């Protein structure tokens, strides 16, 4: 058995540039530090440090650590509401965390710095390696080392065949095993190398990671997305004003949005109604929509489910949520119908207890505002009022309180120019309506019922219930590139880790008595437990006329 280290040391005596692409860094000599550092020397040294494996490792670990706070603290990009809540609960530490970017970890300067440095290091490391690898692929396998016995795997045998025959057989065997081969020492030694794919895969992996980063980055510039809420029976057209929220990359203008539209015909919803432990858990949501690719185009009908988005004109619409929109009609103090239609209610819990706000700015003589709760399957609880016990609409109830503005005044503020949330009612300039006994008026409505508001301010009818669906619409033109890069990275790293890079040499010479001596040796990159078998098989093939491998003789002759 030959000591591995001795073998590799022997290998080091080969030309350095050959080994640089062959041996892993751990088995190469450390580069000497420059003796004196001028400005050029210094910058070169810095660049060397930045592109060293050690720095890459450090940055990798730093990246892991830097990514963690994003899982602990709420993130604005994911859930602004929870960030607000956190800030209001942690008045002392919150603002500091905010300033340090803990609520926007993945766009924070420190996180960006880590990954940008990592990728600069990557470029600086991978490009020279690619160049060297290309050269290695183009050039013939390196010359046969003088002392094969010092290689990690080695075998010798004396045979009867003439030298030329053995060399020919060695070439044949190596070729059959898909080695690239070269003849050296005047045709008496054969060098073979294979497994270039390992290094190719490794480079591909690192370059693909770079491509992935670029694709993700480009997506931020060219994508757009937002949320929309569509009530059964109504239509969404892909234009900015239709979105409840919208974000887009700097390269996207409103005119870039493709002019598709779709109508939500029906939203079928099913909740768990058998199992007691998960009663009310969502089981199925299916939206049936009629899509038009552009105004006037022929409509087509599609179904959308949670994992099955609607695909239309480069964009995808994902079913993100759903809820109820009670259909109401409101008459004002003059008896005129001033509002009629569905009003989307905001779902607040798993039983679909929903917040309802109805604003009636056109009511005369006094503007009206109603606020309250919709319970899809209502149950009256002593002390708690109405609660919902099941998310499906089995026994819907609308529980409202009513407010009115001073006659002739814009108490709702709808014309004030200040943007308002449709889900909240600012009551600061409204008066709560009370019954004759002075209690706040509470209206309880079943579908089909009408309630009269106090003080001749009007009446409200709960006509029925419709469902709405909210859709996440997004378009990310570089998605495909990101996926492609990721797949290449996966292929690359697999090749890199599973393909073995090996060198095998056969030298044939004549000893003092004129006999033919065959020597074989092998060197592998990194760990390679199979190298011994490989060398032995090649050796057997070269030394035996029938090419059949037999181990016993070899063993006895190994050092």
């Amino acid at each position, binding site marked *: 058995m030959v000591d591995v280290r001795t073998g590799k040391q022997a290998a080091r005596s080969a030309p350095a540039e050959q080994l640089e692409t062959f041996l892993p860094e*751990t088995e190469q000599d450390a580069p000497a530090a420059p003796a004196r550092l001028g400005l050029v020397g210094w910058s070169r040294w810095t660049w060397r440090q930045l592109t060293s494996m050690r720095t890459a*490792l450090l940055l990798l670990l730093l990246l892991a650590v830097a990514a963690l706070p994003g*899982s602990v603290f709420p993130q604005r990009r994911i859930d602004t509401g929870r960030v607000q809540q956190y800030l209001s609960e942690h008045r002392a530490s919150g603002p500091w965390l905010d300033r340090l970017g803990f609520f926007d970890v993945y766009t924070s300067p420190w996180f960006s710095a880590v990954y940008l440095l990592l990728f600069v290091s990557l470029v600086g490391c991978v490009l020279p390696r690619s160049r060297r690898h290309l050269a290695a692929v183009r050039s013939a396998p390196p010359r046969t080392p003088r002392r094969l016995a010092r290689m990690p795997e080695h075998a010798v045998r004396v045979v009867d065949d003439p030298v030329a025959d053995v060399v020919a057989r060695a070439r044949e065997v190596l070729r059959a095993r898909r080695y690239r081969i070269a003849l050296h020492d005047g045709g008496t030694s054969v060098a073979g190398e294979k497994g270039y794919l390992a290094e190719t895969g490794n480079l591909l992996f690192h370059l693909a990671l770079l491509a992935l980063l670029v694709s993700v980055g480009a997506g931020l510039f060219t994508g757009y997305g937002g949320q929309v809420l569509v009530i059964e029976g109504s239509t969404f057209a892909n234009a900015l004003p239709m979105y409840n929220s919208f974000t887009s990359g700097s390269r996207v203008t409103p005119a870039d949005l493709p002019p598709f539209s779709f109508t939500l015909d029906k939203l079928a919803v099913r909740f768990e109604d058998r199992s007691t432990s998960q009663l009310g858990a969502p089981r199925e949501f299916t939206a049936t929509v009629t899509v038009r690719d552009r105004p006037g185009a022929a409509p087509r009908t599609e179904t959308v489910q949670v994992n099955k988005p609607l695909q239309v004109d480069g964009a995808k619409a994902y079913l993100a949520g759903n809820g109820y929109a009670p259909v109401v009609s409101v008459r004002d103090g003059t008896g005129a119908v001033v509002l009629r239609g569905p009003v989307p209610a905001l779902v607040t819990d798993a039983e679909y207890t929903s917040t309802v706000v109805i604003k009636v700015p056109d009511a005369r003589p006094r503007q009206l505002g109603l606020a309250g709760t919709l319970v899809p399957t209502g149950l009256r609880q002593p002390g708690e009022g109405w609660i919902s016990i099941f998310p499906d609409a089995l026994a819907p109830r609308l529980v409202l309180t009513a407010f009115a503005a001073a006659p002739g005044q814009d108490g709702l503020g709808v014309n004030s120019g200040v943007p308002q949330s449709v889900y909240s009612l600012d009551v600061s300039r409204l008066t709560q309506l009370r019954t004759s006994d002075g209690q706040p008026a509470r209206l309880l409505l079943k579908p089909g019922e009408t309630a009269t508001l106090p003080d001749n301010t009007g009446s409200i009818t709960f006509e029925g219930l419709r469902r709405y669906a909210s859709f996440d619409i997004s378009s990310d033109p570089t998605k495909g590139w990101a996926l492609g890069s990721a797949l290449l990275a996966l292929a690359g790293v697999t090749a890199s880790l599973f393909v073995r890079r090996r060198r095998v040499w056969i030298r044939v010479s004549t000893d003092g008595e004129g006999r033919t001596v065959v020597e074989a040796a092998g060197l592998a990159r990194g760990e390679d437990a199979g190298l*011994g078998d490989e060398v032995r098989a090649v050796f057997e093939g070269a030394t035996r006329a029938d090419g059949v491998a037999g181990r016993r003789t070899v063993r006895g002759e190994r050092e």
Partner: protein
Amino acid sequence: MAVDENLAQVSNTLIYSAMLVYTGALGAYTADLAIRGRHGAGEPAGRPRVVPAGVGASGGSSSGSRSSSAGHAADGVDDAGPAVGASRLRTKAGGIGVSLTCLAFLLHAGGVLTRGLSVQRVPWGNMYEFSVAGSAVVTATFLAVVFRRDVRYLGAFVVGPVLLTLGLAVAVFYTQADQLVPALHSFWLLIHVSVAFVASALYTLGFSTTILQLVQERRERARAAGRPPARGRFMDALPSAAALDRSSYSLHVAAFPLWTFTVLAGAIWAESAWGRYWNWDPKETWSFVIWVVYAGHLHARATRGWDGRKAAYLVLAGYACILMNFMIVNVFFVGRHSYGGL
């Protein structure tokens, strides 16, 4: 689709039976180590020995799986010492351990299968099912390796954690058989989770091996310093630290592309469910961190100045992240993956 309560009940019974048999296997493996430790005391692992000419380094053991890395793993184990060292000694207890593990695995797999049949879907929709199915994959992976190479010394360190996981699953995570919320109906869920299971199982084996490696290394250093370790004789029955290091490396090499695939499939799933392939939700973040740490580990192995031991600490960090991702993130962190069913 209703839940078949009878089948669900059968599943529970199978899992309890599997736990019982695993306990027996654990006992057998422990006995095996104890016996081998006593035998091996005379020739501690890792000490240089005279080897008959030609018998040694990767000599002659099966070449059937040479091309695969798992094969190399076990080759590393073979390198550990002479053909008849303590680590190769076959005890009856070890054999019983393996047989019991097979039996336990059949029960365990049956439990997973009946659970799936009872709800007519893949049996990993909540934390309980996750733990049960995941630990079944760990056992399967271990058995797959054991049938190729003698890694019975790992038995106690694999069956132990499996038993612990099942215990946790039954006692803490238990959720009644039920159907999935719509976001979990997906082909990609199936792919994503099954590959994640296999990768995690390999990481689990790798972790156990690494722990043994670190312990072995301490003992070897102590011995080299002239202070033979007094306790833990059974460790002498195990391969040398260098051989364990090689095994652990091979396991991690096999796991890394699988974990890469897991993250990728997760992104594809997220894209098909929510429209964005990456949302940085806690589960995704931790999967990413795990990936980076294990990439760091492979990287470290090729970095000058990072010997086996330093790199081994990264394995500990990586595995801690896996546990964190599974146990803590599913349950306590708010995110789109919070479907643990607890």
